[in-house]
């Protein structure tokens, strides 16, 4: 796609978006930067604090622990959702009414408000009134997500798998749809095994959309707030207090503006860095495909 003409007037077309996003992103972000280098005793009286907050946070256990939990959470759900999503995509019917039914039912969890997702699992997992909790209790498993560390983590992870695996599956499915039948026929003539078909035909065709799936799942799982907040409230103790939960606690709960702002900036930078790496890989892959 190198046939774009140079036209600086195109800036005029971008202007509305620019104004809108500047209003809703740049101004708030500047406020955050402003807070992060100041201290206050209330009454809107601020005085400069330099990089104090950053140093304090980097030296405190609180942020590192939250970051550790966050990384563990993102790694676990990616390790489950991506292979499972690919597996589901491979098993989805290609066409017909049954395919439509699958598409609609699979998209359903994606369109449920996030706190309702939390509520659903909160109810589902309760030992007294929830199907899952009651079944597990019946089987003699000691399960209580509000008190037990493993139960809380298992619930939060299963909930995320329930909520988002469909996204990976739908993306993978779209990638599979773009493979012409001729490829499969050629593979059949060559008597390729099922694994070879997957490894050399399906996986390369899916790699582009899978990158996007991984990028999206990484970003969104790194920002997760509502669902674990509703289910476990960050507990037991601080066991499921992920970065966003900790941040909201600090900013809106304790109103520690300085540290919260410094926290926000570092948090944002981590996401930005990882996403930039993904984005660069994606665009180079795109370019390579375009040349073929």
């Amino acid at each position, binding site marked *: 796609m190198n046939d774009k003409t140079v036209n600086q007037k195109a800036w005029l077309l*971008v202007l509305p978006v620019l104004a809108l996003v500047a209003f809703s992103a740049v101004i708030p972000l500047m406020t955050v930067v402003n807070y992060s280098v100041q201290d206050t005793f209330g009454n809107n009286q601020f005085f400069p604090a330099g990089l104090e907050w950053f140093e304090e946070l980097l030296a405190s256990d609180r942020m590192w622990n939250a970051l550790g939990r966050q990384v563990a959470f993102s790694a676990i759900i990616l390790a489950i959702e991506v292979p499972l999503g690919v597996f589901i995509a491979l098993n989805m019917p290609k066409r017909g009414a049954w395919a439509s039914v699958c598409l609609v039912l699979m998209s359903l969890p994606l369109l449920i408000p996030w706190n309702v997702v939390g509520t659903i699992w909160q109810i589902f997992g309760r030992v007294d009134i929830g199907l899952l909790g009651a079944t597990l209790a019946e089987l003699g498993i000691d399960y209580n997500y509000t008190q037990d560390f493993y139960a809380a983590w298992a619930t939060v992870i299963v909930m995320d798998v329930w909520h988002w695996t469909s996204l990976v599956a739908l993306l993978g499915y779209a990638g599979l749809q773009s493979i012409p039948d001729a490829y499969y026929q050629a593979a059949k003539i060559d008597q390729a095994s099922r694994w070879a078909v997957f490894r050399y035909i399906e996986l390369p065709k899916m790699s582009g959309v899978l990158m996007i799936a991984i990028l999206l799942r990484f970003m969104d799982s790194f920002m997760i707030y509502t669902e674990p907040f509703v289910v476990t409230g960050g507990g037991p103790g601080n066991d499921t207090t992920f970065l966003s939960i900790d941040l909201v606690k600090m900013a809106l709960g304790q109103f520690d503006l300085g540290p919260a702002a410094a926290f926000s900036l570092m948090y944002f930078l981590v996401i930005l860095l990882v996403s930039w790496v993904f984005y660069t890989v994606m665009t180079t892959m795109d370019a390579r495909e375009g040349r073929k």
Partner: protein
Amino acid sequence: MSRARPRIGSAVVMTLYLLFLMLPIYWLTNMSLKTNAEILSTFTLWPNDLTFANYRTILTDPSWYMGYVNSLIYVVMNTVISIAAALPAAYAFSRYRFLGDKHLFFWLLTNRMAPPAVFALPFFQLYSSVGLFDTHIAVALAHCLFNVPLAVWILEGFMRGVPKEIDETAYIDGYSFGRFFLRIFMPLIASGIGVAAFFCFMFSWVELLLSRTLTSVDAKPIAATMTRTVSASGLDWGVLAAAGVLTILPGALVIWFVRNYIAKGFALGRV
């Protein structure tokens, strides 16, 4: 080897997966049709004492159903604003090369990546200071933060698929830019607009943190209404479940209408 066996395997896998997806939703629906006494006293897979009282509570009490109205108002506002702003920008990105275009594009995307928790507090202060706190437009504008970049991204993908010759022919025929865009170009990418609107709707509808922070009474979304009621009125499980079911319905309706485009929207990988 016959093709029958893998098909059966696939059917089993899909059935199990869909079962896993539907079980929690089934349980929620089940609970919404029971009385609180039944929920708490006995454990039944099917409501013994079928009741619609929970739904009646929600649909007759303004403090409940206004939550749905508020949510729908700002979601629709947000979708319209996002698409209207994103259309010309996406056109510029798909057709022209200009100073800083690539950086600008990535910068837009970074806003999709920004954690809402980072923006909650500054948004609250910004909208309070301009007197927009607790209005629908405040939430609609706040959601533009992630929906506008998304809409630009999706629309750009669709516009790239329209050959440039069409633009040029239209100009030669004497169409002005505005007329060309409205009369010729927009119908060509109608499905793209549909997909973009779907995703804007979806992400605005499911978001809670920002919409809760920016509203108190007049524009309180249904999702926040639910959270409050859980903590305030104790454990009215039946009503809570019914409210949950009602929040799923709009999403299900929207999916049904765009089901044939979903795969295409995903295929562009622009989510």
